[in-house]
């Protein structure tokens, strides 16, 4: 069933590609249908997952490539555990959201929706792969749709941004590939479950810390950390709205997921030694990202930089190398995905209407578009960590988990949320509450079902997690507990 969910979007791609040109308006219906079914499948797995029996469930596994020269088998193996299941659910959810908010795409819709579906398959693949090489393949495939989506359907300096994105990621991937191969050949397996059981290997041709560094580099670029973050604001700013949503909502989580699943889990001894460095990098990213956010003039760039800051909390939680911190980190990935995804949807709607994202030009939009304004306030408050909304739960869990181990860095992180309040409130104050500007008299509110539906669904998820976090928290805990045990 999991394999079906992962590859169903590819079937959707075939269906879309086979559509005749004059029927191309159906592409979005196919895409919506396929992503809805994928969401339903994963939601079913979410409910069906046996929480008492932690570990990987829904596993499909076959040997895929067998070499005569070595005793290594490359496997096609997928499965979900408490860590990956919520992230897969997030992917499927935002996948559907991104199709819906693209309802008005006019330019080459067949290709657009086909690429979105390819992207969805690769992301689901990353989160469910149980073989390191398979993981890497899905990780790489994701670049292709991203490149085209940004460079064809983007805005502004889109080709530059797309290339920058690809180059950055390729650079990380190259390092990761070397790391994976060294690791795999030394341990005689690429199976993530076996690698985790073996623990640190010490007989590789390069030191273990070098392997650790090679592999984690790719994840840190993806997360991203300062100073490897400059691809993110460009890619976000120039990408179409739906791609920004996926980029912030899911793609960055590939980095965080990789750190937890690969770096910490497979090389716990090195990870323990590296934890203080991770904490320092996290604190720098949080504060640097937050300060940069404060002076951004473009709404999308602003949210992009706030992502740099917020993803720093993921790394901070990971650096705690304990159950609480890791749960907080994974929770932060989920909540950031929802919240920032929602912010990008909203900014996209504002941009569609006003054709500018410049904060200085926008003013007094609340009376013109009350629905968007209310949603923006909700998402903004969630983003600045207001209790009873999702962001607070993950942030405080990260802080509580990390403080004992890295006091100073955690306090730096806490200071970051004061900046967050500043940039969010100032932005809302200027854009939505400012004096009404005659230029924006004619703008209309979000009224279509495909605009309101996703926003309301995201709000519901953010409020639900904020009020009763245990529903996700318990699952994440079961996922990270084995990792924490290896680390502890």
């Amino acid at each position, binding site marked *: 069933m999991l394999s079906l969910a992962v590859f169903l979007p590819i079937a959707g791609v075939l269906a879309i590609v086979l559509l005749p040109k004059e029927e191309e308006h159906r592409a979005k219906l196919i895409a919506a249908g396929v992503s809805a079914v994928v969401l339903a499948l994963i939601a079913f797995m979410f409910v069906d997952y046996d929480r008492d029996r932690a570990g990987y469930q829904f596993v499909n596994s076959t040997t895929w*490539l067998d*070499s005569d*020269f*070595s*005793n290594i088998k*490359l496997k096609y193996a997928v499965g979900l555990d408490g860590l990956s299941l919520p992230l897969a659910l997030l992917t499927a959810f935002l996948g559907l959201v991104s199709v819906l908010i693209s309802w008005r795409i006019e330019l080459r819709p067949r*290709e657009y929706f086909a*690429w979105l579906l390819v992207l969805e398959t690769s992301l689901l693949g990353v989160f469910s792969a149980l073989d390191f*090489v398979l993981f890497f*393949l899905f990780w*790489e*495939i994701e670049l*292709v749709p991203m490149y*085209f989506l940004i460079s064809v359907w983007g805005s502004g300096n889109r080709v530059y941004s797309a*290339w*920058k994105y690809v*180059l950055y990621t390729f*650079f990380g991937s190259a390092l990761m590939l070397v790391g994976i*191969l060294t690791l795999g*050949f030394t341990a005689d397996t690429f199976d993530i479950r076996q690698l985790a059981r073996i623990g640190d290997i010490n007989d590789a041709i390069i030191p273990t810390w070098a392997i650790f560094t090679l592999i984690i580099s790719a994840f840190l670029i993806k997360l991203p950390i300062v*100073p490897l973050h400059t691809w993110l604001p460009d890619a976000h700013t120039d990408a179409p709205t739906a791609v920004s949503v996926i980029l912030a909502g899911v793609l960055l989580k590939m980095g965080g997921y990789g750190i937890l699943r690969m770096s910490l889990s497979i090389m716990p001894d090195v990870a323990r030694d590296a934890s203080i460095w991770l904490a320092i990098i996290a604190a720098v990213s949080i504060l640097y990202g937050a300060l*940069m956010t*404060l*002076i951004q003039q473009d709404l999308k760039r602003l949210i992009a930089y706030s992502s740099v800051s917020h993803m720093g909390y993921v790394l901070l939680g990971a650096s705690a190398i*304990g*159950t*609480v911190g890791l*749960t*907080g980190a994974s929770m932060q990935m989920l909540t950031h995905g929802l919240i920032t995804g929602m912010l990008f949807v909203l900014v996209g709607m504002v941009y569609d209407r006003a054709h500018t994202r410049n904060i200085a030009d926008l003013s*007094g939009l*609340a009376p013109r578009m009350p629905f968007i304004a209310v949603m923006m306030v909700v998402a903004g*408050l969630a983003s600045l960590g*207001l*209790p*009873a909304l999702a962001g*607070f*739960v993950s942030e*405080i*869990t990260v802080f509580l988990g990390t*403080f*004992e181990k890295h006091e100073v860095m955690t*306090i730096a992180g*806490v*200071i970051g*949320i004061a900046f967050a*309040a*500043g940039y969010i*409130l*100032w932005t809302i*104050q200027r854009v939505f*509450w*400012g*004096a009404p500007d005659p230029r924006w008299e004619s703008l209309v509110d979000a009224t279509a079902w495909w605009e309101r539906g996703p926003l309301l669904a995201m709000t519901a998820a953010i409020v639900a997690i904020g009020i*009763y*976090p*245990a529903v996700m*928290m*318990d699952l994440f805990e079961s996922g990270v*507990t084995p990792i*924490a045990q290896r680390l502890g």
Partner: protein
Amino acid sequence: MLLPLGSFGVITLVSFLGLTRDGSWSPRYSGYLTIAAIFVAFALSLWALDGAIDADGARVGFDGHKWVVVGELDVHIGITLDGLSAIMLVVVTSVSLLVQVYSQEYMRGDGGYNRYYAFMSLFTASMLGLVLASNIVQLFVFWELVGLCSYLLIGFWFYKDSARRAATKAFLVTRVGDLGFLIAILIIFSETGKLGIGDIHEAAIAGAVGSTALTLFALGLFAGAAGKSAQFPLHVWLPDAMEGPTPVSALIHAATMVAAGVYLVARFFPVFAESDEAITTVAAIGAITAIIASLLGIMATDIKRVMAYSTISQLGYMMMGLGVFGIVAAIFHLFTHAFFKALLFLGAGSVNHATGTFDMRRMGGLAKYMPVTFWTVFIASMALVGLPPLAGFWSKDEILSDAWDDRPWVFVVALIGVFLTAVYVGRMLFLTFGGEYKGGEESEHGEPGVHSEPHESPTLMLVPLVVLAVMAAVAGLVNIDDGLKTLIEGWLPRESEELVTHGGFQWWIALSSTAAGLAGLGVAWLVYGARVVESDRVRHIAEPLPEILENKYYLDWLYEEFFVRGLVLGGAAWLLSLWDRYVIDGAVNGVGTVARWSADQARLVQAGQAQLYASVMLIGVVGAIAGILIIDPK
């Protein structure tokens, strides 16, 4: 008993949800629904108070409910009902009830009527949640939620630039204090592994926490309390918060939310009592705040701002009370202050209703036009000054005598504070109600009104005023035979209870504070009533104090221009943006130029079919892996 208590929140939240659905919903219903919900909550609070009295103020236990349990982290949310929270419940619900009734008239015809009642309901619910919280994280959650409501209600008239700014400022300044609160939570969790409030008390008393950590914990909490209760140097947001509707100021920014900081310190009294540094800080900050705020109150020309400074200064008194281990006196003062200060604000609202302005220089002579408003405000003012036998006298006297018992220097400061309070109260009364009427102005809502002939406010607004005036007059009597003592102390662990100061009633203290109050009123009468002394001459003699006061000690400038615009935005963030653009991106683009050569090759493919490009890439990756597999020596 758990169910009805839980329903406080539920009822008010339900009304909150109901309110957001407008359409056929008549705005008046929102008001009725809110009032009904809060009335039920008030009745339940009285019941809870009754239960607490029966238990002699000790904690009535309830089981918690699991919220977050991860590894060693265990957050169970629950309810703390004891004497302290019962008193707070009654204060919150009774003032809230009266304010909602008053608002029916005050907010009539405002476009945001539904929104107003929705936020007010949410606020009341959150405030009750804050008071009842049994876990420090739970307390923090509601702490932030009342802050949110405050933010939303200050910015209620969001089309006014000043309101927007004030709202954002309030949220950000209190958040600075909340960072301390949050760090305090982290400290105590890493020290004890516990987050339940009772568990923290036990750990603190048992000495399970290192003394440095305990002090830091207490100071962190106090930072949060100072933000919320507008204590120096985080008091700057409260005067600006007067941009919100006046009933909001009465409920949130006078009677309840701003007292949450005092409640927080009282709730963690067992912790503060263990740390000498922490409790001294509380006393000192309270003393500084009480003095600087009452000085500012003498200069303000806006009647609401006078009262805002007065609130800050009275909160300073409560902190001083806590700082001398006088928890009973402090909470008693919180109790009486809630009534007379809410009354003063509602009175200011009534005055505004008649004159259309908050500027005292444009009022005058209102006593004869608005007798009910005048007499109620007069009672509240005298209670604020602390003249016997009004409520403020008893509670303030208790703080004074506790201070004399514990730290005499606090007593001296407090006595000076009484004098200054009387000066600004007298000035406010003489300017507003004395002399001749000076015209008024356009109303707060913006509709042009004719205010040439001020009139008394409608009955619906006067009833709450009268009820509050009665409370302001007699609320002090509840503690005349130490009735509150057992209630407020009953929940404390025995070790902490022994530390509480009980100064007791002393004639000379009562007389000297009354004398200080009368002296202050006398000075105000000389300058603003009889005008025997020119205010300009006083001003001239006191140079440069008035100028410093007019600039509010230059704190706004220091925070906004120097820290925020100068250091953070202009300095750090600007430098980082240069670094981002030139150094990091410079390096990246350098790499990019090298890579462009290969990019040019790729461009041939790019022009063609996208699918082709994708498959080439996929084949390339698979091929590379297969190649390595084959080449590998093993």
